């Protein structure tokens, strides 16, 4: 069990470093889209919800799982779409970026 925890810790620390490294300079124009795009990524917990909701029986776990799935899906679908909508509006002088 400690093995899994350690591997997880390695992954966590390295991923945090990658996160800090790739997001060093963000133009303020992109603060909101970056936040809402990152927000959609945090909906990755949907994957966990799939594990929780896999049983067809009406048990507490399945209901919690289905609820988690619904919330995560709102987060993922809504987050990516609204980010795309926002970014579609950003335009450069003269021409549309989209």
């Amino acid at each position, binding site marked *: 069990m400690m093995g*899994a*925890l350690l591997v*997880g810790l390695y*992954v*966590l620390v390295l991923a945090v470093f*990658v*996160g*800090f490294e790739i*997001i060093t300079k*963000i*133009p*303020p*124009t*992109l*603060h*909101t*889209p*970056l*936040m*809402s*795009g*990152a*927000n*959609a*990524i*945090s*909906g*990755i*917990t*949907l*994957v*966990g*919800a*799939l*594990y*929780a*909701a*896999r049983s*067809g029986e009406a*048990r507490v*776990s*399945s209901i919690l*799982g289905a*609820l*988690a*799935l619904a*919330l*995560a899906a*709102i*987060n993922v*679908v*809504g*987050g*990516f779409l*609204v980010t795309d909508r*926002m970014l579609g509006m*950003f*335009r*450069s002088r003269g021409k549309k*970026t989209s």
Partner: protein
Amino acid sequence: MTASLVPLLYLVSAVLFIVGLKGLTKVRSARRGNAVAALAMLVAIVATLLDLGTFDLRWILIGLTAGALIGLVAAMKVEMTAMPEMVALFNGCGGGASALVAAAIFWVDIIEPGLPGTLFESLGAAGSITGFLSIWIGAVTLSGSVVAFLKLSGRLKGRPGWLRPRNVVNGLFALAAVGAGTWVAFLADGATELETATVVLAAVSLIGGWLLVHPIGGADMPVVISLLNSLSGVAAAATGFVLGNNVLIIAGSLVGASGLILTQIMCRAMNRTLLNVLFADFGDGAAGGGSSEYENVRSFSPEEAALVLEAAERVSIVPGYGLAVAQAQHATRALADLLQARGCEVTYAIHPVAGRMPGHMNVLLAEADVPYEQLIEMDQANPEFKRTDVVLVLGANDVVNPAAETDRGSPIFGMPILHVADAGTVIVVKRSLSPGYAGIKNELFEHDNTMMIFKDAKEALQELIAELKELTAAA
């Protein structure tokens, strides 16, 4: 075959998440980056379905369809002015989902099979501690985001700073959550007790999140939203530990890190520390900040202001939260177009914490088709004000308040501001003199070169446009 296929697909997904997030940091690649991140999500979901092998679709379909539909409608319908509350709500959904997943795992693995012993004995150190963290952080994110949503959309009033002393209350709730978490992870013996302990932990966390965000004032919202964004990632990463799933850990940490960077940027833009935003009894010093009575404030009509604008060659527009409230972004653009057609140079000076979330003004002006090159950051805008004829302050207040530099007793002392007073004339459009947030007086309104127009931003802009058109026609 599928045994190694699934982890490989997760690896592909993690790489795509990183590539997508990196894309989101540059204007040119942002839209593609977002699409790549969405693809990464799809890969992760497909890999998980493969991993599940045989599963019953009933609950999965109900949950997925309901959530996807709600998300779709919300994303398509939301007004750009309502973006801060929308982002807050999506954040809360992510945090809540993570907490629910961890709770569901408790039920699947221990409560429903009726396993004896403690969570630590059945799930090990990794599962039990991160399970507690996932529920705590996820639930705090959920209730905190819901409060932020209610406050931002004007459904929940409440004077900032009503809860005192905040650090004690928040500290007590943090202690209570750790206590309940210890009960969940190490002490609760058997299924029934674990069930009770989990419910208690969730309740304590939800109330704690509510009380953490509720007393925070509107001007601090950019910090709060960035922080909640970061927390939703941390909650997902914690859930990843419970499940032993690396793609959750990676994606969650990426979001946690990016949210933390944004939080830092926002704090720096206000010259405050995160601890100060969250725990200090903000507003105590407001009374000590000198008289809050205004003298020598000169109110002008749009007609008089139009005369000043007509003569201007360089105009800078400083938008604030009032612009969003009045939904005046299109009127702003129309006025800028009119000025530019007259040969006037127009730029927008954007303070990093103008509005209620990071980049709020940029999104609003983008909706009105303002090219982003015209949006100038504070550091570049400040030296330019000396060469600017007219600054038009639209619904902004604290970010142009000279007290931040001159008045040591002011609660916003030390916050970098836009030096609009350097310009020839400052036209301030504001609904009233009400000091608003924490009752800070703004001496800019008393300056000799300041013209106040007491109107809703949209109304004032429309009248300015009409007057300018008339002047042009007469000439």
